[in-house]
């Protein structure tokens, strides 16, 4: 099979670009640990409270060390449960200072949901029987909408929350 000289150069250039991309994301993934969310732990979707993180009293945000937070969430159609505030009202807003490291842990009691803190890299699928977990440094100040970005039924667009990153 005959390849024109220019086509050879083009294909070498194209493949080299692809290899370069793969080296960059591969280095970031395997050496820096920035894989996409791929948590392997399973859970009984009909009994998520059996897991410590998803007991009603443990839901919502908790500071575990200086500048380090854990947010536990239970998703169900069509709501994110971030726990209750001191007056017993459902929490809808997570507040963290800029630069803090936040570990989001989430599971679902029913169907597949999404969990995205829009405008950040926190973006994961939430599937029954699995725990999704992603740690992110909240670099930028602002109000970020949490959206369910995976279809979960007729109320899908009513599933949301807010992350507020303050100075």
């Amino acid at each position, binding site marked *: 099979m005959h390849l024109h000289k220019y086509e050879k*150069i*083009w294909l070498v*250039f194209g493949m080299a*670009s692809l290899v370069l991309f793969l080296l960059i994301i591969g280095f970031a993934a395997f050496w820096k640990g920035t894989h996409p969310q791929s948590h392997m732990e399973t859970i009984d979707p009909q009994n998520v409270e059996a897991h410590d993180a998803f007991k009603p009293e443990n839901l919502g945000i908790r500071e575990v060390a200086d500048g380090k937070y854990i947010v536990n969430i239970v998703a169900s159609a069509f709501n994110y449960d971030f726990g209750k505030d001191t007056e017993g009202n459902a929490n809808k807003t997570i507040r963290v200072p800029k630069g803090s490291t936040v570990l989001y842990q989430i599971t679902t009691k029913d169907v597949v949901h999404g969990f995205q803190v829009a*405008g950040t890299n926190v973006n994961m699928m939430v599937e029954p029987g699995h725990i999704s977990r992603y740690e992110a440094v909240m*670099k930028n100040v602002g109000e970020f909408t949490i959206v369910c970005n995976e279809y979960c039924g007729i109320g899908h667009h009513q599933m949301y929350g807010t992350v507020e990153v303050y100075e």
Partner: protein
Amino acid sequence: MGKGNSKQHQPNSNESTHNLKGTFIAVMLLGVFILVSWFGFYALFLSR
């Protein structure tokens, strides 16, 4: 459209089929576009 005719033109046609300078520039521009856009989005990803 006879065979003889096409043979007569062969050197000429060979030359023209092998001049692919425009093609080369076009695909390289395409390649540069892919590179630039990929790095742009990667930078956006890192900034978030």
